[in-house]
């Protein structure tokens, strides 16, 4: 195979990997702080993308045309409102179920996701059809040898990586991050030390959910089309990425995201029928779990009885 084709595949894989990693970071944050899986994450992503679309339509209606203004505004509104939505879900659907078996949290958030998805389908004007997403990023591309890199992908990859780095800095360097890590390690002791438990949890959920919104906006800008079901598969892939990397570990989520994209790309190259790429990727995920039951970058921990 030609080297430039390989490069092209790697580049496209990178793009996907960033999006998956953005979703996975959310899962891993939620799990880290509360030991729960919030399955509505993928649908929060969908709602984020639709919020971005509505924001764009409103702004464009108001006469703002400059993409320099539009892109940040659209992304910011989507991220802020999804942060709020994530915090609301945590406040009213996750925190009240702390005493219930973990499967109940999973099911509640799954149902919340279904409700969000259905709400988009029913209440967005003709929401069951795919919606065109505006092409706001520059459309040109650079050619390096045989490798063409679209400007928009480059911008999206850079933004995504930057966002992940910012989250990482927040978690490892800031006071909020210290609180998050304290709650994750031992919520009771953290409370004794004067950390506001609920506030920390809600902020973590807001942070993770705004990452999902960013991923949703990226998908919209990249494919120029969004639909009400787009979050389902992305959510499951993000979840797989977070679990394969090792839940609760930020690096794990990033590794998992890129690994999943790599698997899909490999699958697409390997098989004649491109649709087999998901079959391949999920099969490898199952095998990986059999090999490393707690993820690739899991903390070694003895079980306390």
């Amino acid at each position, binding site marked *: 195979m030609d080297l430039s084709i390989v490069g092209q595949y790697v580049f496209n894989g990178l793009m996907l990997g960033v999006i998956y990693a953005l979703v996975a970071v959310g899962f891993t944050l939620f799990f880290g702080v509360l030991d729960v899986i919030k399955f509505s994450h993928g649908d929060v992503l969908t709602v984020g993308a639709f919020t971005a679309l509505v924001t764009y339509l409103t702004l464009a209606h108001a006469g703002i045309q400059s993409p320099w203004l539009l892109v940040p505004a659209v992304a910011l509104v989507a991220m802020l409102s999804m942060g709020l939505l994530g915090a609301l879900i945590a406040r009213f*659907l996750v925190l*009240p179920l702390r005493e*219930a078996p973990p499967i109940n949290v999973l099911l509640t958030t799954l149902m*919340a996701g*279904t409700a969000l998805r259905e709400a988009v389908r029913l209440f967005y004007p003709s929401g069951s059809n795919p919606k065109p997403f505006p092409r706001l990023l520059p459309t040109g591309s650079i050619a390096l040898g045989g490798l063409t890199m679209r400007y928009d992908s480059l911008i999206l990859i850079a933004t995504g990586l930057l966002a992940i780095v910012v989250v990482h800095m927040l978690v490892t360097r800031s006071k909020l991050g210290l609180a998050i890590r304290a709650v994750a390690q031992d919520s009771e002791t953290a409370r004794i030390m004067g950390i506001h438990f609920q506030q920390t949890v809600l902020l973590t959920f807001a942070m993770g959910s705004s990452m999902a919104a960013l991923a949703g906006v990226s998908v919209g800008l990249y494919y120029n089309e969004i639909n009400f079901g787009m979050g389902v598969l992305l959510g499951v892939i993000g979840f797989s990425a977070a679990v394969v990397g090792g839940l609760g570990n930020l690096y794990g989520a990033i590794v998992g995201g890129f690994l999943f994209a790599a698997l899909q790309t490999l699958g697409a190259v390997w098989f004649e029928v491109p*649709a*087999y790429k998901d079959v391949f990727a999920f099969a490898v995920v199952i095998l990986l779990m*059999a090999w490393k039951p707690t*993820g690739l970058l899991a903390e070694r921990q003895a079980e306390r009885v």
Partner: protein
Amino acid sequence: MRAPIWPAALATLAMAAAGGLFLYVEQQWAVACLVAGAALALALVGRTGLPAGIQAAWSDHPRVLAALATLCSAGLIAFFREDHFALLMLAKVMLFAVACLGLTIQFGYAGVVNFSGAAFFGVGAYTAAALAARSGLPHPVVIFTGGVLAALVGSVLVLPLLRTRGHYAALITVAFAILFKTFLEVSDMLGGPQGLKVPGFTVLGWSFNSNIEISEASELSFYVSYALLASALFVVAYVLVRRLERSWLGLSLDVVRIDETSAAVFGFEVARWKILAFMAGNFLAGVAGAIYAMMTGFVAPASFTLSESLIFVSIIILGGLGNLAGILPATAVVVLLPEKLQLIQEYRFLLFSVVVILVLLFRPGGLLPRTLRSYRPGWGRR
């Protein structure tokens, strides 16, 4: 002293009557009134001492009441003998309930998560489609093979499931559910997204897909045969799973679920019990799926998605995890409500998810939480 039998008998009859009436009425306002009335009645009954009485009666007179429930369902089938739709719904409820019995063994007893119930249901369905159309095997054998194949396909997941726990194990079954559906969609041999046609169930020359003629004037719907078959399967599966629960097998499964570490310390082979539960549960789902495919006449990937699996999971959690008695009412509600309420057809998933969330928030144990086993009448009371 045995508890009086009448509260449970009354409840069973009332439930059958409500279900029958629900299937019978056509007008949307009548359906809506019925749903509201049933909810009100349930709320009122919940305030009285009746639920405890019903429970006591069930544990003291299990056989009589089970016979009564069977009679009631036979009565419903007889009542709807000419109504295709109502019978199809009845049979669907029974078959879904069988699959949920299987899931209960996994989730409720052994604590093995399975978010790909619909996939194993689908393995059975596709087995029926392939074998009934392309081989000369007698159909009862085909259905049995559907169950066996579902268990065998599930055995691929056994190793990863045994090594993982909690959310990690959940991921494996979620991944399998998606993998299975995608595989069906791209596999040309299995018909791709359009799916396959399935010939009807035939045993000893008696085709289940032709109406049963009684005389010139009256003809029974062919779904009568399927409804009877499905009910018979449910009764057999229910009795088997109930026996399993009450036996030392069920006790061992409970021990494994409640505390794996202590179970291992006390010499239980955790892996063996989990494998048993996983295989048995998938077998039931596969058998139900095979009959379902033959009844509906075709299979397509869209019926075996992750969301379908989640519907199964919601049924067993709504009914009360591990409580066999809750499965049939919960399945009836989950399957029939959206089908019957055409008014809210568009909004049914939205409404359904909100209802499940409310139940989980306010009644975490499900509608009918599991109670302690009672080996003798009146055990554990007083």
